């Protein structure tokens, strides 16, 4: 008997499927509400090599759904913490830890080392980046995403040359204002638990040829009603228009801008501007419990919800720069303050505190 006996005795699965899992190399993008259950079940099932990529740190508000982490992990890198946790549980699988965010610069090298990619990210720029790279590198992608009480799961790019990719369904990225994420609309922890577990199940079925998969289909699930809806996906002539022509072209594409993040500036420009405008203000619009905090620069902390109410405070600021965790809420903050101060210079800082050029890394 070994630790996989309960699945190898399963009719139709057997030791042949187990061997396939052992030889598989799977990359999990993001260790959030989706990534945690994905990792727990892939590791338990015996996927031989698992890559974990995430540059984010654990914060208190993650703990309702990111079940690998606990109170002792606050402020720690998520990929490193998850890798340590899984290595301590199982000695028979290989865990590769990549404690960085996926970017246009590192994605080719990272994705090339895996047979299957699983997207557990939480923002459109990353989702479009991962999709496009999977198309250009010929990698199958298990997609999963949530919104309030609903979730989506699909296997994209899993059918060779005739595959469907994410841009067949949604050719152009929505703007950040269009579709909010969990930080803004809230989520019960069990929903990404269910959707991430479905992604893990689809990955295991796809890798072993066990059962019917969601290749070229998208499943919608509603937590409140338990209703599900599966649609067959179709090719879209507009799909290829948005995908860079080669992986080299992808490396010079700005996914923040194509996702409607165009009002934003980067951290370098932000500090440049703050140096020029003596009356400039830098504002963190995250909740008080979100980490990491900006250090070494003067700034105010005003959660997005209170910005409208407190706007009078910045009546005399010539320049207002806003940042949050990933650059989504700060874009909304720009819209809120622009209503009160149409003539002022107001910008969001692209990618937020987690941006690759963020002062927390420099």
């Amino acid at each position, binding site marked *: 008997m070994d630790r996989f006996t309960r699945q190898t005795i399963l009719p139709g699965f057997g030791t042949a499927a187990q061997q396939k899992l052992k030889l598989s190399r799977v990359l999990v993008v993001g260790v959030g509400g989706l990534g945690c259950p994905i990792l727990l079940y892939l590791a338990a099932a015996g996927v031989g090599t698992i890559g974990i990529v995430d540059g984010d740190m654990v914060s208190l508000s993650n703990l309702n759904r990111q079940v690998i982490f606990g109170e002792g992990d606050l402020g720690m890198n998520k990929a490193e913490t998850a890798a340590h946790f899984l290595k301590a549980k199982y000695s028979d699988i290989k865990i590769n830890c990549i404690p960085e965010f996926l970017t246009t610069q590192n994605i080719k090298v990272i994705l090339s080392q895996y047979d299957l990619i699983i997207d557990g990210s939480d923002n459109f720029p990353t989702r479009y980046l991962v999709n496009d790279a999977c198309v250009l590198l010929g990698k199958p992608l298990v997609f999963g995403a949530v919104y309030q009480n*609903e979730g989506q799961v699909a296997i994209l790019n899993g059918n060779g040359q005739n595959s469907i990719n994410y841009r067949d369904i949604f050719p152009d990225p929505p703007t950040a204002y269009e579709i909010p994420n969990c930080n803004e609309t809230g989520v019960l922890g069990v929903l*990404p638990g269910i959707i991430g577990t479905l992604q893990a199940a689809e990955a295991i079925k796809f890798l072993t040829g066990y059962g019917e998969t969601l290749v070229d289909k998208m499943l919608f699930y509603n937590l409140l009603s338990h209703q599900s809806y*599966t649609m067959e996906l179709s090719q879209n002539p507009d799909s290829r228009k948005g995908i860079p022509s080669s992986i080299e072209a992808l490396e010079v594409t700005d996914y923040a801008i194509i996702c409607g993040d165009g009002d934003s500036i980067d951290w370098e420009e932000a500090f440049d501007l703050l140096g020029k405008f003596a009356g400039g203000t830098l504002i963190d619009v995250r909740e008080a419990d979100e980490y990491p905090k900006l250090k070494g620069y003067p700034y105010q902390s005003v959660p997005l919800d209170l910005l409208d109410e407190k706007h009078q405070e910045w009546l005399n600021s010539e320049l207002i720069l806003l940042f949050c965790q990933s650059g989504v809420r700060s874009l909304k903050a720009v819209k809120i303050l622009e209503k009160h101060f149409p003539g002022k210079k107001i910008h969001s800082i692209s990618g937020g505190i987690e941006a690759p050029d963020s002062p927390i890394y420099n």
Partner: protein
Amino acid sequence: MPKLEPMTPTSIHVIAFGMIAEKIKTKELVLEYMPDTEVLLGYLYQQFPDLKQTKFSIALNKKMVVGKTFIPVGAEVALLPPFSGG
């Protein structure tokens, strides 16, 4: 939530997900016959102008369709937006 009209031999059944359901204020609608997806979208945009600002995909009887597509009588039309959370 408004009460759903009963289906008639010529009506179509529209179901909505995510923020599309929020914008049309219901998860389901029964509409009198619409010949194709362009006419349906025109009607929805007129009734719910907020929808114009949201991207979504359309499925007809559980198969995704692209561009102007004929809607058979009694069809189920789903309006499916992208989600980004994780």
